[in-house]
């Protein structure tokens, strides 16, 4: 029986691999006494403290925000810090690194291929150089305009969608769900003028046309983002752009001396209680 308030013992079958020593990855079992509320990340810390000090993985925030601890838990790419052990395992749990990436060591994938693809789609708001040198005023964005891409801003670049993508598994040149989803996010942002620069990348032969719409990326996303939807919407943008049907609203620059129009359902501010 597990002691110290543990609910049960769970055997973690951890995939280990050190490219400097091992010729191939192998599975090593570790027994972890699991308490209520313990996450998979806590279990890994337990293993490192009591069983194997060489076990390597990546983590930072411990609260599903930084996206560092993406790994394959019971065959599903997800965040270790966001997964309760008792929710996913009765007595056995398998843990491996995210698929579709090279392995740095054990559970730490090399995410550089994803980062390079992400950089290639210009993941920032593109504006004219002259405007950047003279940043007078600000750009209005209505709540409706924000709503068009808001969910895609929740992406934390954990790589779970890339690990789940079957197309990426067969062709590592494919850009993948995260970069394509982010390309849609910036193309749709009304403050951005860079869609014409992104089109050659996302519309190329390793871009959106490769997506088979398996939808695994959306199922895997720990933040509830729907990259598969972004890719389909990006396809629509590309086709519209090809036929010259793009109807993106130009950004509305507001200088320091201009005022926006208040929406009709916003009431007046209450009167001041303190004189300035």
């Amino acid at each position, binding site marked *: 029986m597990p002691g110290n308030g543990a609910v049960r013992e769970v055997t973690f079958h951890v995939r280990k691999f050190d490219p400097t020593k091992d010729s191939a990855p192998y599975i090593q079992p570790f027994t972890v006494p699991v308490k209520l509320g313990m996450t998979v990340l806590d279990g890994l810390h337990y293993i490192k403290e009591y069983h194997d000090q060489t076990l390597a993985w990546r983590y930072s925030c411990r609260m599903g925000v930084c996206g560092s601890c993406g790994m394959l838990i019971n065959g599903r790419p997800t965040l270790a810090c966001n997964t309760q052990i008792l929710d996913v395992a009765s007595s056995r749990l398998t843990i491996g690194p995210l698929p579709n990436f090279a392995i740095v060591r054990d559970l730490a994938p090399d995410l550089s291929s994803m980062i390079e693809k992400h950089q290639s789609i210009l993941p920032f708001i593109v504006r004219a150089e002259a405007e950047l040198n003279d940043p007078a005023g600000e750009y209005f964005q209505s709540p409706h305009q924000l709503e068009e891409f808001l969910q895609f801003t929740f992406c934390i670049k954990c790589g779970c969608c890339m690990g789940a993508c079957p*197309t990426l598994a*067969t*062709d590592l040149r494919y850009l993948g769900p995260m970069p394509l989803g982010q390309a849609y996010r910036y193309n749709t942002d009304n403050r951005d003028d860079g869609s014409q620069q992104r089109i050659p990348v996302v*519309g*190329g*032969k390793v871009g959106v046309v490769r997506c088979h719409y398996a939808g695994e990326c959306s199922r895997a996303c720990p933040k509830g983002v729907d990259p598969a939807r972004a890719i389909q919407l990006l396809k629509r943008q*590309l*086709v519209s752009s*090809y*036929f010259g049907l793009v109807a993106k609203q130009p950004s509305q620059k507001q200088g320091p001396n201009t005022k926006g129009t208040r929406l009709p359902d916003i009431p007046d501010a209450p009167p001041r209680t303190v004189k300035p």
Partner: protein
Amino acid sequence: MGETKLWTWHLIAGVVILVLLGLHMLTMHIGELTGLFVANRAVAPTAPINSMARDSQIGFSIGYVFLLGVALYHGLYGLRNILLELTLPEAAEKVLTALLVVIGLGLFSLGTWAAIASHAVALTTGRG
């Protein structure tokens, strides 16, 4: 953008096929019921007399050449996409694309010749 262009026309070709193949089905397979492009309803729509009647119409011949073109494009582009997922080297991908273009043009030429020849035969037989 090049791939977007090809892919967009692939989609459009699919829609065109849906319409033209629908017409083909209505004519050739349930022509007894629809009577569409069936000159003599006493015999099957595929009977030589009905085929000749259809082939003698220039619009019908052009329609079949058009269907052949879009079907070849749609099919061969789809085949290319499947084959490109084998992650071939760049040079092999270019050879494959060129090969499929040559095959497509060859089949299109053959089909077009057949349609023109049938049209000519139908006109000649009709006059005779």
